[in-house]
């Protein structure tokens, strides 16, 4: 089974992190490990946009993780961007090793002002499985019940499924077992 290295950066919600690890272990069993990556966040911050350039974070992560045999998932709570887009929930190397997920726009209080930790965990897991799916070689799926369905807005994150559909699961079951 593939190993997942979880690299939280400037992540202060320890309970959420614990819950994410617990959820990931339901799928990846003991193959989930927390790592520390010395990413220079300030160097990738856009002052104008008050966001962080995700591709450059991934580029730094690549340099620091040559010795890691598995998938490296960076978890942040700040907002991500690439110059052409207004924001990103996450970014992944298709068929690659690295991915990043931002929880910034997954917080319900970002939209309605209401804190909902349960919903945050559900949304976080969807985006984590989504980006890992890209690492496993999956592209976006047309099935709304599948976590690999594209979601450009939070409402789409909420209505899509929480895990891979049968067809996508068939493609990744080799790495999950």
């Amino acid at each position, binding site marked *: 089974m593939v190993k997942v290295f979880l690299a939280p950066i400037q992540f202060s919600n320890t309970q959420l992190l614990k819950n994410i690890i617990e959820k990931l272990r339901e799928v990846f069993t003991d193959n989930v490990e927390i790592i520390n990556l010395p990413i220079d966040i300030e160097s990738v911050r856009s002052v104008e946009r008050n966001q962080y350039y995700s591709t450059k974070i991934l580029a730094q992560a690549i340099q620091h993780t040559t010795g890691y045999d598995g998938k490296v998932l960076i978890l942040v709570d700040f907002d991500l961007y690439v110059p052409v887009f*207004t*924001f990103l929930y996450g970014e992944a190397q298709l068929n690659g090793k690295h991915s990043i997920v931002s929880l910034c726009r997954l917080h319900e209080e970002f*939209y*309605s*002002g*209401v804190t909902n930790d349960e919903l945050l965990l559900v949304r976080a897991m969807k985006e984590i499985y989504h980006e890992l799916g890209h690492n496993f070689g999956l592209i976006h799926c047309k099935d*709304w019940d599948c976590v690999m369905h*594209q979601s450009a807005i939070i409402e789409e994150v909420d*209505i899509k499924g929480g895990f891979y559909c*049968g067809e996508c699961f068939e493609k990744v079951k080799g790495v999950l077992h």
Partner: protein
Amino acid sequence: MSYKANILVVDDEEIVRESLQHWFQEEGYSVDAMEDAESALRVFEKDKYDLLLVDMKMPGMSGLDLLSKIKEIDDEVIFILITAFASVPTAIKALKEGAFDYITKPIDPEELSHIVDKAVNQQQLKKENIQLKSSIEEIIRPENLIGESSQMKKIFSLINTVSTTDTTVMIRGESGTGKELVAKAIHINSTRRYFPIVTVNCGALAETLLESELFGHEKGAFTGAHYKRKGKFEMANGGTIFLDEIGTISQKMQIELLRVIESKQFFRVGGNENVKSNFRVIAATNENLEDLVKLGKFREDLYYRLNVFSILIPPLRERTEDIPILAYYFLKKLTTSMNKKIVDFHKDALDFLLKYNWPGNVRELENAIERAVVVCKEDKIKVDDLPFHISSNNYFDSDDKSMAAVEKKHISLILYENNWNISRSAEMLGIDRVTLYNKINKYGLERNSK
């Protein structure tokens, strides 16, 4: 549905080309990128592209000039212009020249996704021979919608008939029979399949939340509403809205629902913009709506509005020939996902599955097999591997053989096993928490009883 368009991105900025290429590759599109209009024209003459995403302002030939040259070669191609400068006159000129749409940098992912999906889906629908598809007897079934019994064959035939129309459908059946799967089957066999099916569990939402959930809210509609939110009806635009447990909604919401279903228009909470949404309605219930209408608990006008085409899913106990088919299907599915080498059922285990009443229907069968797969230590599932409450004979010891008696006993045992944890018990029973509370009240169950 598997056809993916070929896309050509034309932009002089390398970072834009790379980001857009990456974005489209994740969508499964085949993408090429060119840094200027002249090179784009050269590759377009050589290769076939379905969609061009072109920067308006580039050194040399502009995006608009490229548009007119491309249209001379292929009038069907989808042309979307990107610009850093939002300019209405240029946008209008581009649209007059035949561009599909116009988008400004930095691009809102939702906007890009929406425009590209719309363009590609429209082109694809044109290409599809819908007539040919509708004449094929076989329907595309969602996972888990399984059955070879005459009752299920009839349901597949009904799905086939109704999916080609836009008729409102009412799906009825006990908890766990697969009402949501039937709704999904109707949706994915309809022309709305490229848009989402949005499920609303009416029984699980408090009335105060239901309004915002269904209709969305405007930015600033209430304290903390930092962003505009789309409601379920808006999210279902182009697709289907599935209203599950419709019998549980309040009188106030029944009036609201009737109005929205009839007009396909509504206001977001705190908004004054009339939002239009093109959705199909599929509703489901496990209650007797006719009784609720007679009791004055469910509006007659809403009942007739929803009950245009009715599909009744029989309980599993009435189609026992489907039990082995379903059992083997779940066995294969669950052993694959859990990576276990269990290949069969012992004969007595299979006999038991056939004899059991399945008050929780297919969902209960799946849960029972999941539990058996977890505990099974051999290559065949034994009776003992099945959940205790199913494999025990307690249900049949009683003189009262009615379904209600069996259901009461079953629920008591599950609650007892879960130390009256309602969420866990509801999940195990394959019903929602509201239904479980209703049943606890109905049977007068108390914490100390078993």
